């Protein structure tokens, strides 16, 4: 991965032309984009649902930690790793 880690005050949002939504037939969040589609697991879906260009990365991590208090550190690492991956893949942009 050549992208730099996103700073905590960055406000990630979905790239243009990407559609993120719940898909009943997959019982999952999905990402639709020009070259294809991806089914997201529950944690990735929970992160992307918060990448609205308003919340900062720090806020997103804090919100998810509040929902799963027992796993604080793990969540922070997981969210950062996923957001960096999603930026690298071009799904997310930092606003």
């Amino acid at each position, binding site marked *: 991965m050549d992208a730099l880690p996103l700073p905590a005050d960055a406000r990630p949002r979905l790239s*243009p*032309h990407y559609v993120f939504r719940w898909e009943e037939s997959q019982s999952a969040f*999905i990402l*639709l984009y*020009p070259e*294809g589609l*991806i*089914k997201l697991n529950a944690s990735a879906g929970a992160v992307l649902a918060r990448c609205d260009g308003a919340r900062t990365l720090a806020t997103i991590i804090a919100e998810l930690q509040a929902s799963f208090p027992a796993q604080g550190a793990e969540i922070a690492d*997981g969210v950062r790793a996923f957001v960096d991956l999603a930026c690298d893949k071009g799904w997310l942009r930092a606003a």
Partner: protein
Amino acid sequence: MPKETHGLSLDGQGKPLWLSLELTYRCPLKCTWCNNPLDFEDYAAKELSTEEWKQVLRDARAIGALQLGFTGGEPLQRADLEELVAHADGLGFYTNLITSGIGLSEERLLALKAAGLKQIQLSLQSTRPGLTDALVGARAHAHKLEAARLIKAHGFPMVLNMPVFRHNIELIGEMIEWAAGLGVEYIEFANIQYYNWALMNRDELMPTLEQVREAERVVNEWRAKLGKAMTIYFVIPDYYEGRPKACMNGWGAIHLTIAPDGVAMPCQEARVIPGLAFESVRDRPLGWIWHESPLFRKYRGLDWLPEPCGSCAEKEKDFGGCRCQAFLLTGDAANTDPACSRSPHHHLVQQAVAGVAAPLRFRKPLVKRAAGAVSTAFMED
């Protein structure tokens, strides 16, 4: 929170994730490499109505389809394209238009945008007006450039599709340069596949191995230069690779194509295979056709594979290649794709490649896609 944060799978789980609607086979162009059926003109009278297409869209969503391509022929020939895009968008499809650009006015582009169209794939055959026009058999180059400009001006993501063959393969570098100037994000060099019109013209269209290698070198040079600004899709054609393509990700796995007359197919070429029982959405529910019909079950999965595929580790990746190519070259769709070097019929592909390298004393003229250009009486049953 679950551990597998990067668990991003794409498995159809038996659903036709990718739906292609061939709205019509009508088209103002006459491409000699066209993969539409030879008897394309017979479909005009049998095209599904607007309401029938809408029913197809609803039924396909009900069995899990998500990505949707409107293609043809030239889909802009259908005056109800905007209405169908709007219906599909409302159902939750990600809608793509696959077009030659002929008929794409600014007015229609705006209507398509309003209808929810997400992406446009535009085909362009060369960077030189005279050559493009000669290749497609009409004054098309200027219209295509104008279409490209409009598509970008209205903010659509665009795939530029260049079907590649002997007459234009040396223009790949020029095409990339032109596309980069326009801000195209994705360019696809589609080494043409030899079905229908393309198969008829194969010996004249097929590039030489030197041309293919040189094209690959040029592509790699541009990839290094442009980096992430542009994705350049180019794969060495299966005829030269000794490995078959993972055709359609497997038969009846994630792709579903509906022909203008409502016939459902695992891929757009499947009708070249004789003896298969094709079903139309006019006669049978789409869900039954996809899940249950003998056609879709025939080559689904890996269990039916013959040797050498059956005992080959590659089968998980390529599913034994393309059924249509296996039929067209070996006479039996259930054979290993002869593009594979392990196929007992691989010499057929090698002969075709060798034939291209040998200097010919004369070349046949290319047969343009046109009604009556070839006799298709033998196709009637």
